[in-house]
């Protein structure tokens, strides 16, 4: 059966990369379309057609139908391609995976950027929020290799931001969000995650990400 799977994404976005990882994990071939997200005028007409409400990536196109929002796309992928499931079978475990994925997007991701952009008290407060969030996730991981157990699952994929983006920001800014003494298992998890075959190819080029982020911080927009 011929299936058309296309992904509109952008190289630097953790949300976009999540979808790539899931498709890779399931062995689903797809066509990738890189979108220019810095200039609205340059967004492709197709993207604007498929996501008129938010005009954002990622957008998964399956046989002409668009699916939006990275976590919703992950659930769709899991329901459509049954091999290598990324969500647990048990409803309570599924609820927990969803809860913690949302926690990462709501409570860990935003304060990293606030800490980076802010200064003084605002930065301190944001740092505390990130650290608290990471310590909570350390407890959730509970010494396991991955959040999903022996292999990566949806929560691991959702936590891609921590394994890569957060650590890149940490390295070039000196802001110590994640330390091995407070979060030993999570620190180890980061290394395990980025070395996974299905993840390796779906991380942004490190130097490019640093260059773009530094430039963005100086107010020059998302460019290098």
């Amino acid at each position, binding site marked *: 059966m011929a299936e058309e799977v296309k992904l509109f994404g952008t190289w630097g976005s953790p949300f976009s990369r999540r979808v790539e990882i899931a498709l890779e994990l399931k062995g689903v071939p797809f066509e990738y379309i890189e979108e220019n997200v810095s200039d609205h005028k340059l967004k492709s007409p197709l993207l604007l057609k498929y996501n008129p*409400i938010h005009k954002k990536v990622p957008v998964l196109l*399956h046989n002409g*139908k668009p*699916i*939006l*929002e990275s976590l*919703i*796309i992950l*659930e*769709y992928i899991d*329901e*459509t391609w049954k091999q290598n499931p990324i969500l647990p079978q048990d*409803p*309570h475990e*599924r*609820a927990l995976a*969803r*809860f913690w994925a*949302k*926690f990462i997007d709501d409570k860990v991701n935003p304060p990293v950027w606030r800490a980076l952009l802010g200064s003084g008290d605002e930065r301190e407060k944001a740092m505390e929020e990130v650290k608290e969030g990471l310590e*909570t996730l350390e407890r959730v991981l509970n010494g396991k290799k991955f959040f999903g157990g022996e292999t990566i699952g949806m929560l691991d994929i959702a936590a891609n931001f921590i394994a890569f983006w957060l650590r890149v920001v940490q390295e070039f800014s000196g802001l110590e969000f994640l330390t091995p003494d407070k979060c030993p298992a999570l620190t180890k998890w980061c290394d395990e995650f980025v070395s996974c075959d299905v993840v390796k190819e779906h991380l942004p080029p490190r130097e490019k990400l640093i260059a773009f982020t530094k430039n963005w911080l100086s107010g020059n927009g998302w460019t290098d």
Partner: protein
Amino acid sequence: MAEVKLHGFWPSPFSHRVIWALKIKGVDYEYVEEDLSNKSELLLKYNPVYKKIPVLVHGGKPIAESLIILEYIEETWPHNPLLPSDPYDKAMARFWIQFGVDKGPIFLKLLHSTGGEDQENAAKDFLEVLKIIEEKALGDKKFFGGDTINLVDIAYGNLAYWFKNLEEVLSIKLLEPSTLPRLSQWAQNFLEVPVIKETIPDHDKLLAYIRRVRKKIVAEQLNK
């Protein structure tokens, strides 16, 4: 069958969502009213991350966050389905539910608005949101779920009664047949659904509660 308990708060629409889903599925549950100014030890134990209601406890295992609870209920008691079975339609339902979440800050701005211009702008922004919901999510359907209500109706349910009460308190008219004919009709139809009709709080009691909430908000703004 394992015991089901719901920790809720009588005026909270998030609490009501869970009640509606449980009743539609015919699930017996014990309701525990929480005093939010004096949260029970159990609530803090069941939801240490957010310390909020609603929390569903099934066989001793807690699930927090109303939308995650709704998905859990749907998966655990699959009869009288509240989500489409087709993965694409399910993804679209989840998209519209998430849209409501994303626009939450606009609603909060309206709830917290003081002074003529502030309130006018907030109302204008919220009306735009409602127009998108009417046009793109509801369309010409009776309910978001089609002929019967589903999780999308449940997620937007607060518009039909809670928001109408807030309009009364703020002396604004947004959800009106003249401005939003289809959404207004939906609200009427929604309130006629037996499960909804039987469970929403008494109009006067809720109105008085919302007035108290507004009074507190306004007093806090004046003290700033």
